[in-house]
């Protein structure tokens, strides 16, 4: 459902992508993996249509797309529920939300385990809670593609797992998730599809089993890895 064809993109003299082709399947959790500066965020912005490729094309047939940047600035002095409300005013010309829209907010908040924080000022939420709030924003946006740029940065292990659990749940609703993650082992547990950005400006796009091989990981990170496969599970270790 997202098709990238012969994509070329460079910043100043630095080439990020050179003749890149890949597909991202629909309704799956796709994980983008790669070292810093490989162009992971740039790729999200390209897919989101925020920036345009210099060559090639990106075909996606989605109605609505939600992109959560890495760093977010928050409005002040409004409650969590009001923060989520903001998105509804995109198309609404009314001053007040309908009951149906309010129910959607409640549902999104309970899905993100934030129901009890509904009336708390967002200024007083923790960074983990704020990140979950942003994902709730993605849910009410009614998007068929949700893209998250390192949503688990600044989170402890428990919250990381919780957030990834929530995100995984969304794919059951037919929403396609594209997410940048740095924790390879964690991403191997949750991801359905993987995109690895290599140092020679290509993208390896595979399902889990075919993606996690020492050769691919070497190509991406330029480090030797040991990959242990145990039925469904994949364990990745760095070799010294």
């Amino acid at each position, binding site marked *: 459902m997202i098709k990238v064809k012969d994509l070329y993109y460079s910043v100043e003299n630095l080439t990020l992508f050179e003749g890149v082709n890949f597909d991202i399947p629909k309704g799956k959790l796709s994980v983008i993996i790669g070292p810093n500066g490989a162009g992971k965020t740039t790729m999200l912005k390209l897919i989101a249509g*925020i920036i345009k490729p210099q060559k090639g094309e990106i075909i996606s047939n989605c109605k609505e*797309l939600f*992109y959560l940047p890495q760093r977010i600035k928050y409005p002040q002095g409004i409650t969590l529920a*009001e923060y989520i*409300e903001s*998105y509804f005013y995109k198309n609404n010309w009314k001053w007040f939300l309908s009951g149906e829209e309010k129910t959607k907010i409640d549902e999104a908040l309970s899905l993100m385990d934030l129901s009890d924080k509904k009336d708390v000022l967002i200024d007083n939420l923790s960074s983990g809670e704020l990140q979950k709030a942003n994902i709730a924003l993605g849910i009410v946006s009614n998007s068929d593609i949700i893209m998250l740029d390192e949503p688990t940065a600044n989170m402890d292990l428990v919250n990381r797992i919780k957030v990834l659990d929530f995100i995984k749940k969304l794919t059951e609703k037919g929403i396609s998730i594209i997410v940048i993650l740095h924790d390879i082992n964690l991403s191997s547990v949750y991801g359905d599809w993987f995109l690895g950005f290599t140092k020679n400006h290509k993208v390896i796009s595979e399902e889990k089993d075919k993606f996690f091989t020492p050769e691919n990981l070497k190509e991406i990170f330029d480090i030797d890895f040991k990959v242990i496969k145990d039925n469904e599970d994949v364990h990745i270790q760095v070799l010294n």
Partner: protein
Amino acid sequence: MSKSKKLVIITVLFGIMLLSLYLAIYAGYKDLGFKLVKKAFNIGNDPDSLILNFLRYPRAFKAFIAGSCLALAGMFMQAVSKNPLAEPYITGISSGAGLGIVLSVLLFNSVNYSVFGFFGALISSAVVILFAGFSRFSITKLILIGLSVNIFFSSLISFIILVNPAKSYTMMLILSGGITANEIISDKILLTLFVVALVFAGIFIPKLNYLRLDSELLETNKGKKYLYTVVIIIAAAFLTSLSVFSAGILGFIGIIAPQISRMLFGQDYRWLFASNILLGSSLILLSDYIARTVIFPLQIPLGLVVAFIGAPVFVYFLTRKGDMFRD
């Protein structure tokens, strides 16, 4: 803050506005009192009702318009730029208006300088918005272009004042801001324009609640983001031009009213809409009352009083609730 608490604050602000309106209309050197309220509606020929109908009412009316327009325009500019320092005059309005005023004094010796100021404001903001939109629109670019236009026109204003010493006092006085009458645009037209601008602003208030989200997050809906932003900037420019027409150039009010409102209500623009209208108009009504009474029969230019009262009030609020402004 709970809804009921916000309602209480809005009611208090409404009370302050009514009190200011009372002072502006009925108090002063000629203390008219409430007994004249009825009389005022049937225009009589006695001096008291003449004062009311031809001096006090039009003056309070214009003070109300100037205050609420500036506060709303300031709120609009701060909302779309996400910068608490953005003010209504940022789109080149103050110097455009100033140039219009100075030229009208220079060329026509006109009593209609407020009309010239109005059109000067409209033209300069149109120029700035067009320049900012020529290639890819951005708020930062708009602010910088507005700044350049302001500096360019200001140099012209200073030059005109310097080479016309005979008229420079008049020019400086008018530029300090104050409520005046004119012979071209009637109060009825002004009221119509004000109501239209207010309705238009009201329609776009929910959009400000959308634009308060992170600006990069809104990038996936670029079309809507920039459409709403540009429309809101145009609305702000028009509101500011109306305020110039009503009361000349009044600095600072477009920053303090929106910021105090924000400290009181947070960034819910539906509440801020009401709060800014009430707070902005109260501040100008009160300032104008002081401007015309303190050294009667002389008048202090309104702009100076606004700054004199506004600054301490603003600093008071900042010391109380200023921790919402973090670096």
